[in-house]
């Protein structure tokens, strides 16, 4: 929990297998604190897998073996005394398909608080305040303040996705992982989510997996290019796109494959 740590996440010699298939090969990467890092690469290159390693949610899917080290804010998350619950509280994830829970908008936002605090600690006032703050932060408060008790699954997709981000905020996360958060959204929705990410930049470390190179170029500060489970190149975004060092990166960003 050291805010001056230059890197939010570092990995050392990270390997991962699904059964016998090796999905990550010797990944060594250091992702900056408080910035937006884009992860690009063709389908199946392991970028989502890597993202899921950062809060160890991979392990919930079964059949996963991991070796190596991942440090989140300086702490090795494979240390035996690390609580996965506390880890995931600090490192939240947003998915490709917005996945609000089938409960009200209000309950979606306070879901995390209810999970992590005993009932008596949660006064109505505290919950109300958390909802207002989180929804304001993602820019939904004005639209939804009179509709807090409608079912979250009935919102527009863009609102659902913002709500999924808002759901993480009351837990005061350090890192927000976004797995292709705009691929189910239209142009307007994509713009709204991108603007939101830029506003959250600085307060949270954002890591976004995307298929959309233009999107990575628009919003990320640094960019990681992956191929076949390996990190090929990791540089500042404009350098990666303008002067790629590796020919495979050059071919990919020019759209010759992928």
């Amino acid at each position: 929990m050291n805010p001056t740590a230059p890197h939010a996440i570092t990995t050392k010699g990270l390997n991962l297998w699904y059964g016998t298939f090796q999905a990550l090969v010797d990944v060594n990467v250091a992702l900056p604190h408080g910035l937006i890092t884009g992860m690009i690469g063709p389908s199946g290159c392991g970028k989502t897998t890597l993202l899921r390693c950062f809060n160890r949610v991979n392990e919930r899917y079964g059949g996963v073996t991991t070796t190596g080290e991942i440090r989140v804010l300086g702490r090795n998350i494979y240390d035996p005394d690390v609580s996965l619950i506390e880890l995931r509280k600090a490192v939240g994830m947003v998915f490709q398909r917005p996945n609000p829970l089938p409960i009200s908008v209000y309950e979606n936002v306070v879901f995390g608080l209810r999970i992590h605090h005993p009932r008596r600690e949660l006064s109505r006032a505290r919950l109300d305040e958390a909802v207002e703050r989180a929804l304001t932060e993602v820019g939904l408060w004005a639209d939804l303040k009179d509709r807090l008790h409608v079912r979250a699954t009935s919102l527009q997709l863009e609102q659902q996705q913002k709500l999924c981000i808002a759901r993480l905020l009351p837990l005061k996360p350090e890192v927000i992982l976004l797995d292709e958060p705009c691929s189910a959204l239209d142009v307007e929705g994509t713009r709204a989510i991108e603007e939101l990410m830029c506003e959250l930049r600085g307060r949270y470390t954002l890591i976004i997996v995307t298929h959309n190179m233009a999107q990575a170029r628009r919003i990320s500060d640094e960019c990681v290019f992956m191929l076949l489970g390996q990190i090929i190149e990791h540089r500042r975004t404009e350098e990666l796109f303008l002067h790629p060092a590796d020919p495979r990166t050059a071919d990919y960003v020019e759209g010759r494959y992928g």
Partner: protein
Amino acid sequence: MTDVPFQEPTSEVSGLEAGRPGSSPGGAAGGGRRFVRTAFVRRKERFEAWARGVFLAMAAAMIVPLVAIVGHLTYEAWPSLELEFILDVPRRGMTEGGIWPAFVGTLYLVGLSLAVAAPIGVLAAVYLNEYARDNWFNRVIQLAVINLAGVPSIVHALFGLGAFVYAARFGYSILSASLTLAIMTLPVIIASTREALAAVPRAFREACWNVGATRWQTIRSIVLPNSISGILTGVILQVSRAAGETAPIMFTGAVFYKAIARGDLFAYRLDEQCMALSMHLYTVTTQVPNVRESVPYATAVVLLASVLLVNATAIGLRLWLRNRKRW
């Protein structure tokens, strides 16, 4: 296609016409003969109509036995069908009167067996679906569940006799019979519950995991509320099986005759034997001479109607819960 060379659009033929795949090189004369039924197509269409007819007939044939059974039963049972038939006790050596002791007995047996089987089955299914990883221990459990579902009811009866009546010393009693029925319904409850749990989208679970919810919190707050209608339906549908089975209770706790008061709902103690509808039907049909003709049919109608009523309730409940929970 090999004998039809690709034609470049020329100035005489418009590009659109000539570019069409399969347009005959003969020109406009061929256009009127396209897309007509050949003899082979007509044959295929005849087969199609015929196949459809056969399948429809088979599906429609399902209605016949149901209508025949219900109609025949009701017709034969008609002279006895009145509320008094349910409320009254059997009279004159079971040749006349009602079926109250059997009706209450079945209520006891079904109620108690579900009270045992439902919690165990649902909790086991939650474990198997939400917690179990793919290892040898859980595979053994799954194998056991599948095999238990395939055991014939007469074997369950023998097991119940050995395990509950003798080994556990419950004797021939409602308790023994209910537990036997419970074992019999368990695997089906587990299977239907797992199906209901699996129908909850994984995205909801992912959402919970990624804010740090434990598995139990995920189950409690999201999975169970969204699968409860399916779970309840699966459990309630087992009522009909438990109510209809004769062999398991015959070996463990059901008797031909038991004298209880007319309309008495609390007639049995759990360590006593009881009468049951399915058993009573067997008795009055095959074991007792000179039974009034409509009595067995009326018994069957009561059994069938009770089961259908319970199933209808299950469907109603499912619709109601599903309308409240929607994603």
